[in-house]
Structures are given as C-alpha cells and as structure tokens.
C-alpha cells in the first residue's frame, strides 16, 4: 500500500485525536503531526485544510475564531460530541484491523 493511501486512511483519525484533548488551530495540528511522527508524516497547508473543512462539514469538529492579545485572530478546532463517537469507533476498527493483520501475518510466519 502506498504511503499516500495510508495517510488518507489515518489522517482523519489523527486529526480527531489531536483535537480531542483541547482545541487547536491548523498550524498547530500540522506541527504536532510532524513532531510526533518524527517527521515521517507531514501535512502541508494544501492537504490539511481541505481535510479540516471536510471534518467540520461532517460535524465531527467545529472551528471558531479566537482573538488573543497582540496576535491576529486564529481559527481553533474542537472535537464535537459526534466527532467523539466517530473517533471511538475508528479506534475500535483500527485495533480490530491491526489484530486481524497480526493474526494473518503471524499465521503466515508460523
């Protein structure tokens, strides 16, 4: 499977997880992904925002303009209750998948 395909599948889950604990803005999200993956996964502006808008449109996350002292306003995204449910189910599916893959690959090795 190509790197691009992996990214697509997991990207949704990554973003949802990153805004789970607290609201974050787009640049922050992209930085976190890059940092936490040790640079293996990167989302640049061109691919990140369409994804954010899509998740927002589905009602899984919600963006809000926030102004802070001395800064220009930024848009912060937070996880909605619906997003929470989706994330939970995606995590379950992911685990099942990993488990399944493991079984298959272990069987092959046995």
């Amino acid at each position, binding site marked *: 499977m190509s790197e691009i395909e992996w990214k697509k*599948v997991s990207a949704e889950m990554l973003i949802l997880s990153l805004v789970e604990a607290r609201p974050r803005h787009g640049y922050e999200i992209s930085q976190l992904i890059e940092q936490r993956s040790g640079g293996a996964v990167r989302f640049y502006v*061109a691919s990140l*925002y*369409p994804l954010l*808008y*899509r998740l927002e449109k589905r009602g899984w996350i919600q963006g809000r303009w926030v102004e802070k002292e001395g800064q220009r306003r930024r848009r912060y995204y937070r996880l909605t209750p619906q997003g929470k449910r989706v994330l939970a189910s995606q995590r379950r*599916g992911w685990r099942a*998948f990993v*488990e399944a*893959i493991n079984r298959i690959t272990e069987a092959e090795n046995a």
Partner: protein
Amino acid sequence: MPDWKPEIARRLAPLKLDPVREAEITEELAQHLEDRFQELVSRGATEDQAQRTALAELSDEDLLTKGLRQVEQEAPRKPIVLGSGGHNFLSSLWQDVRYSFRQLRRNPGFAAVAILTLALGIGANTAIFSVVDAVLLRPLPVQHSQQLVDVYNEIPQKILFIRDVPLSYPEYEDLVRQSTCFSGLAAYYADTFALERQSGSWLVPGMLVTGNYFDTLGVGAVLGRTFDSAGVAKPGGYAVAVISHSLWERQFGGNRNVLGKTIELNGNLFTVIGVAPASFNGLAPVAAPQIWVPLTQESWHVMVRWSLENRGANSVQVVGRLRPGRTIQQAQTEMSTIASRLAAQYPKTDKGHTIQLFPANQVRILPGEVDKTLYRASAVLMAVVGLVLLIACTNVAAMSLARAASRRKEIAVRAALGAGRWRLTRQLLTESLLLALGGGAAAVVMTRVANGEFVRALNALPLPAELNVTLGLHVDYRVLIFTMLAVALATMLFGLAPALQASRTTAADVLKEEGRGGSGRRHRLLSALVVAQVAASLVLLVCAGLSLRSVFNAYRINPGFQPRGVVTAQFAPNVVGYNASQAATFYDTLGRRVKRLPGVTSAAFSDNLLPLTLRGLRRPTNVTPSAMAASLPEKQWPLVDRSQVGPGYFRTMGIPILRGREFLKTDTAKAPRVAVVNQALARNFWPGQDPIGKRLDIGDIKKEWEVVGVVATAKYVTLGEKPRPLVYLSILQTGNSSRSIVVRTSGATTPLAASIRRISRQIDPKVPVLDVETLSQAMAPALLLPKLGVDFFGLAGLLGLVLACVGIYGVIAYSVSQRTHEIGIRIALGAQKRDVARMILSRSLLLTLAGVGIGLGLALAVTRVLADILYGISATDPVTFIGVPVLLVLVALLASYVPARRATRVDPVVALRNE
C-alpha cells in the same frame, strides 16, 4: 513580510466560492503560511527561501484546489475510504473494475462457471428475442417506413376470425383517383409461381405488383432497374420481372449478365430487368417473395385477371406512402369518406365496408387477431426463457454467496480500513457486472450460432413451397440493447443480494465468527435461492413434459384416415390457361394412367384441401338442411367445412364409409347433385334420424344436394380438434380446375412419386406439378407447431434441469464444507456415517420439496396458456404433474449425494484441528 493573500486568492479564484467564505479561508490560510514562514526564518532560512518553501507547500500538486472543490462545492458526506480514490467517481469506478478483474482472475473456476451459466441464461433470451425482433419489432426494410400505411377493407362480418381483408382492384383504382393524402399508393398480389428450371418446375413465392410498387416503397434495384409505371402500362410491356437477391444468387450464380435473360413462370416468358436489394423482403418477413412481375389488366394470370375486374374479390394488398406533413388520422378521415361514397355507389359489394389504415410497421401478417396471436406467442416464449435466466441468476447468486463466505476476511479488512457499506456493495456489484458482461458477450456469440441453426432448420422443413425463409435474423442494435438490459437485470438479480449481505459484515463479526458455521442470514438466503431455483425448474419441466406427452399423443391419435402408403401431388392446369373441360380431360387421362402403375391399389382426386395439411384455404360455408332453409336467413346457417372429392377418394384415404355410398363416376354435372356428409354433420343436422336421402342447401351454391352417404369423422385442421362437421361434394359436379391426386400403393412411395410427375409431364409438360410427396410428409407442417413446442420447451426444461442440478449441488456442497466442524464433532461423539449422510440428504430434500410445492402452484397457473396446443391431455395432466416432481427430487438427491458422501468421510481429528 510577504503578502500571502493575493497568492491564495489566485488559487481560490477558479472555485468561485461565496465571497464571505473565501475571505475566511484566505485569512486562515494566510495565517498558516505566515506561521510557517516565521518558523522557517527562525530556523535560519533567508526570507526569500522561506517564502518559496511556504508557497510550494501551498501549491503542492494542486491538492488545495482539488480538495477544496470537493469539500466546499460538492459537500460530499462520504468518508475517506481506502482505495476509493476519493476524489473522482469515474476513477474510483475504474479502480473497482480493475480490482474485480483481479479477483475474478484469482478464481478462474468460479468465473468460468458463472459466465457459462449466465451465457446460457442470457443467450436463451437473446436468441429468442432476436427472432421476436425479426418477426415483430424491426421496421420494414424500406425508406422512411414510418410514412407507409397498409390499407385494408374492414368487413362487417368476420370470416373465421378475420375482419380486415385486402381490397379489390377496382376499389384500389378508386382510391388512387380520389385520395389526396398519399404521394403513392401501390397494390400487390402475393402468389406462388411455378418457376421452370432444368430440373422441373418449382413453386416460388412471388408478387404481382403495380408499376409504382418499388417507387412507392422507395426501393431501388441493386442491378438493372425496377418497374416504371409508364413502361409497364405499354402493351406487351408487362412481360418483365424483378428477381430477389437470393434467387439471383441461387439461380443465376450472382452473375451480372442476368439482365435480359428470360425466365419461365407458369408457362409464360418474362425478361429479367432488375435485382432487388438483399435486405428487401417485400413487406413479408417470413416468406419473402423471390420474383416480382407487373400486375396489369391484360394479365396472363387467370386468377388475377378475374380478380382485377371483380369488385367483390378482396385480393390485392394496398400500401400507401403519406405525403409529407399528412398524418395517418387525416388519411383515415379521407378514406372513411371515400368508403361511404363507394358503399353508396356499389351497395352490392361495398355495403358496410369501411377502409381501415394501419401503420405498415405495425402489421406483421394481418392486423387484428392474427397479429395478436403472434404477439401472445412471443410473450409466452419470452416468459419461458426469462425463467431460464432467473434460474441461471439464482445459480450464480448462490455461488457468489458461498464465495462471499471465503472472502469475509478480505471484506472485513476493507471495512475496518473505513470502506463504507455502499462502497463495498459497489465493489461486489462491479464484480457481478463483469461476470454478466462476460455472459452477455458469450450470449451474443451463441445467438449468432443459434440464429444460423434456426434458419437452417426452418429451411429444412417440408413446407408447401420453396419458401427460402429469410427472417433476416441478425444481431442488430435492438438485440444488443436487449442483451445489455438482460445483463443489467441479471447483475441486479444475482449480484445485489450477496453484495448487500457481504457488505453487512464488520470486522467484529469476522473475529467473532472466526470461520465457524457461517451466519444464519446467509444460510437462509442460500436456502431461499435453492427453493426458487427448484420452483422455476419445475415450471419449465412441467411445460416440457406436457409438450412431450402431447406430441406422443399426437402420433397416437387416430386421424380418421390412413396416411401411410399414400402419395399426393397437386396440379394447376388453370395457371397455364386450361379451361374447365380441358382440365377435366387432363385429370381423366392422368387418373387412368396412374391407376395402371405397378403397386397402386387405388387413386382418386380431390380439391387441394387434404386433411391435416396446410394446403389450400379453408373457407367454411353456410350449410343447412333444405327443410330449414326457408326459416333462417342464409347468414345464420351453421358454418361448415366443405371438400370436393372424386370417386374412390374415401377408399384411397382409408376413411370408413358408415352408411350409403361414396361418389361414383356417374355423379357428374349432368346427374342429380349429391353429397356425402361426415358423422359429426349427420348428428348435428339430423340427430337420431337416417341422413340418407335428406337434402342440404349450401350457402354460395344454394341448391338442394341429396345426401347419399355418411363417412367417419376425421381430423381436418389439427389433431386436437373437436369433431368438425364437414360436407363432401362430388368434384365431378363442382368441376375444380386445380386438383390434388391421392394414390395408395402397396409398394414403395418414392418411385411412385417420380412416376406421377413423369406421367403428368408426358401429358403436358407445361402443367405445374406441385408438392409431390407422401401424405405423411404433407402433414408434417400441421404438426410443426406442437413439434416446435416440444423442441423449445424440451430444450428450456433441460437447461433448467441442468442449471438447477448445478445449483443444488453447489449449495449443498457449500453447506457441507461450512459444517465440517460440526460434522467432525458429531462423528467424534459417535454419529454413524449413515446418520451424517441422512442429515445432509434430508436438508437437501427439504429444500427441494419446498421448491416443488411452490413450483407446482406456479406450473398450474402457467400451463393453462398451453392448453390450446396440447393434444389429448389436459393442461393438468397427472402423469406430468407427478412424474416431473419425482424426477426433480431424484435429481436433487443425486446432486447432494456427492457432498453427502464427502461429509461421511470427515475425519473428526482433522475437522477439529482445522480451527
């Protein structure tokens, strides 16, 4: 600090977003780029480098524009799915196709069986449809056929079941003079001609046509020219002929020097002036004419000459081409006016007649009942092959279901990766579609082969004239569209249920089940499919069984005469100009010489209406006992068949004389008029009385005929008919000029046939000798319909049976493989082989019986439409209705025997370890 907004705005421009939304996005992206820029600079990049990097990330492969277009404009609610491409419907479809292709290639056995099964199902439909298409649906092969209308005379009282009859030639001439709606009105008279060849004279279908026939139809010659009105009208200008493309090829080897050659028709010479296009069938798709000659007043054709002058002779077919801008309704209004004018002018012949127009494309044989029967028959044929397709589809559906089980892991993985239900369903449907397309392609090939065989079989039939059946069967676009529809339907039928079923699978299900047992839902669906399949096969097999029994019966039914050992031939001295007394002399000589041939035990003449043959046109006449003639108007006298026969006829045919005498040599025109009636008529007219000496009045002859004999009732039109009243008259008194001879021999029939032909040629080589054959051969066409019925239903039934067997086998085998674990446990716990086999077989028996039950109900409803063509058995024939289910159950048990045996061999250790 760079200004990002113009860069972003430039990229968003093509999306034409709502300005507020665009400003918002621009601001957010600008902020992001600014952050990125600052970060890069802080890491030591120059401002220039940082700006370039940030902009490059913004432009990355047009991702931004593409992605935003999806989200902002189409607002798709689809989740991102692995392998969906996600952006473009077509590209993801293509991906589905490639994936399906790989899947099928990985299982070539499954793919081959599925495609073959579907090919049989779709092929049966396409083949039958191509015949229906050729006979019923295809527009006439002429220019702008939608402008053509057929003109018919609608008569107040039906003859048999026909109301719309041809016009008479004088009426046609009136229409030409009085109508304004047509740019051309042509008349034609279909007939068979005796065409002289070295090998003797042959009957070929032909047409006498008006000079404007080809021009009106817009058909030109492919070689030479067609008729022109002026040339034909010249004295002596009519001895020209246009021949069909196929006659040109067969008779003249396709040689271009055919123009100017002469051909001899009914003893007259005609010069060939042109060859018609191969596609032109003279508006008669089944029996296309081979020769066209002009229809003119000074005709050489006796029958035609008579009917040209006779206003009461409804003999010419008329076809008109509407002027541009005129509608058929306008033309109809005009015709009605003309018809009422004619009715007033010629009350004797035209009273009560109306003129009825039909779009020529819609008339196939005759408007009304005849065409309706054709449509009904087509509907039955299509329904039966539809059933075959249904069986094929349930088969493939069952296989797909079984296969879906082994693909649960694959599907679960895809589901876990986020593939939605719709997406999985679509993937599986794509596979089904590929299979169906493969089946459709094979079906088209099969149809072409079947069409060739069908035409060959039709041409091999013993038909009364050399018809050269030119159905023009070919795979045209209508057939292809039909095939595509069948493919689509098949995909839905066999693909949807398994796909929906499979796509319901989730990763959790798979992990829970872990290959054990399979889901109950799937089993229920599989069982339903087997039941449906058995039911459909049962319907087909019952139809097949009924047809088969009916034909066996038909051969056993006593036709009331003895066809074996009888040779017959038909003579037409009238077409070469003999008058009645010349014809009588001809027959007299012929009869005397034939009787002297070795082996001949008797010989006699009759009109051409030999029983159970398709010769001659049966036209029942109004007949009544003379005693009742005055009290009833003639039109209300019973309609009775009439036949003219000579001395020795009953003896030759083997029809028993029950009372009185047969016709004698002395029953001539000068002697008192006599009649012989069959028992059915005697019982109807004079129940409980002695008919001998009673008198009959006959509608169009209207004189008293004395009954001198009663003969046994035979079968005249179909073997299945109820006793038909019939009156025989002496042919020596009625003096028919075209007669058939019947000759009974104790020896071989083939040399006798040759001798009859030889004797006729010796007397006068010009007299056409037609249809020299045994009576049994002459009867074959009348038995054709039930025979075709048997062939058709037999084939369809066999196909259904084979498919059902494969289906039952497949499903039982699958369920055994699913239950290996369970069976292992049973065996380990002490179950005997017998118990295991019984368990498997009883399940299959249960399914089969359920199918049989449903099928019997359906069959009872369906076979009612067959009742008309069945001989000597009812549509609910108990032998068929018991025999077929028993056969089906046996076959089903046989099909499940193999898997059952395999089940008994299950090794418990292996089965349990298999986990």
